[in-house]
């Protein structure tokens, strides 16, 4: 990135002249993550909105950053996708030049700097707020980092959500999360949370059975990044939807 900065600075997001006035652009919405013993899951819905309109039904908002980490993005879609691309490039570049991968903390810090670089745009309503999850090889566990618009980074323990539907997703996970989830339970948990977010937030898309558009669910373990296949995620989304036909509000947590 430093090289890019000196070689062709116009390609870096932070160095561009800010546009005047408010720009209306598609926004991505809800990203959720949860840890389980042995890894971490990161998932996102598929909707992008522009004001009241649905801009895209099948946008992809969860990307592998490298083999052991992934990033999910909420906020202005165009800028976010570019930021992820640059982030991926930087991790790969570091790995090739140095012959070693960055530590998970290092990657999280790097992302923090990139978000901070976007602050000018964020002030114009073009914010990018990602969620970063990865497998920490040193500590042998999955970890989640959340960010704010200014690049402030904080580690989340257990579960986290970002984007417009995050309030509802977080409430959902708060009641359903347990620290001893299996990988399968953790993937179900994030799909439940996305369902609840879509239930109450108009900007978050639920599973679309008619068009076969299902949330993107990714799992990162010590074996690396894996995205659930179309079949796996559709089976997951279908079973959640089926149970909701009987209990529209989802599984009940114990009262006391």
């Amino acid at each position, binding site marked *: 990135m430093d090289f890019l900065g000196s070689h*062709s600075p116009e390609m870096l997001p932070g160095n561009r002249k800010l546009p005047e006035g408010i720009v209306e652009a598609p926004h991505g919405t809800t990203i959720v993550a949860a840890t389980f013993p042995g890894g971490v899951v990161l998932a996102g819905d598929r909707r992008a909105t522009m004001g009241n309109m649905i801009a895209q039904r099948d946008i992809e908002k969860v990307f592998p950053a490298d*083999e052991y980490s992934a990033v999910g993005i909420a906020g202005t879609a165009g800028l976010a996708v570019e930021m992820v691309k640059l982030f991926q*490039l930087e991790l790969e570049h570091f790995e*090739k030049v140095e012959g070693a991968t960055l530590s998970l903390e290092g990657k999280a810090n790097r992302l923090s700097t990139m978000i901070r670089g976007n602050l000018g745009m964020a002030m114009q309503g073009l914010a990018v707020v990602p969620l970063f999850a990865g497998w920490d090889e040193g500590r042998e566990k999955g970890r989640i980092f959340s960010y704010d618009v200014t690049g402030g980074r904080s580690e989340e323990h257990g579960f986290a959500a970002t984007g417009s539907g995050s309030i509802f997703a977080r409430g959902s996970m708060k009641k359903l999360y347990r620290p001893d989830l299996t990988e399968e339970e953790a993937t179900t948990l994030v799909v439940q949370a996305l369902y609840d977010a879509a239930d109450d937030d108009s900007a978050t898309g639920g599973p679309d059975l008619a068009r076969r558009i299902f949330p993107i669910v990714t799992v990162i373990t010590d074996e690396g990044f894996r995205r659930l296949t179309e079949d796996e995620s559709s089976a997951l989304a279908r079973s959640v939807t089926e149970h909701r036909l009987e209990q529209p509000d989802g599984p009940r947590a114990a009262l006391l």
Partner: protein
Amino acid sequence: MSTPFYVSPQQAMADRAEYARKGIARGRSLVVLQYADGIVFVGENPSRALHKFSEIYDRIGFAAAGKYNEYENLRIGGVRYADLRGYTYDRDDVTARGLANVYAQTLGTIFSSAAEKPYEVELVVAEVGATAAGDQIYRLPHDGSIVDEHGSVAVGGNAEQISTFLDQRHRDGMTLSEALKLAVQALSNQTNGADREIPADRLEVAVLDRTRSQQRKFKRIRGRQLERLLEPVVAAEAQADAVSNDEAPEESA
């Protein structure tokens, strides 16, 4: 002020070439071979920190013989070139041919400019294709020329001898294990006829494996996996040793 002697351009170039060749010959040789599922890089390298082979991009690998600091510089330059290209356009737009051209320019400019000394390096840039027919291997000698190679290529110390050895024995569609054994055999083959055995922990091996599911096809092979791939050759060499031991007393007798 001293008047410089006139040196003819031919002589100057010949001297520079000689200088570069000597520098390269000091380094240990390495070989790059095609095998059924990709391209394998094999070299003798006692150091585990300083690599002779490395990844440039998804399908492109880099191998170098000669002075470490010089080829390391070229390697980083190559990674930058590739990453910048891939970011600006698309990952598919980074090709070995383009990279080889950039390297050829750099090497050629330094070689023919009067001020600096030429690079004492010889490079190999290889790209693995979707099929064996799409594989590309380019050898870049110190003077900035590009040689398009097929099947096998050797660079470094006694490259000529090794490549003759490989040309005779290499065939298309070898398995990784076969190609690896052939490469080790070629490297241990000495001019004076006394073959020495290179232990697995002194070997640096990497592959560009087209069957790898990831986008990045470059992979280092080390430790147990390398030993496993070399195993039968150890047995075969032991046999060869036994045979030569049998013959030895007769010779001395």
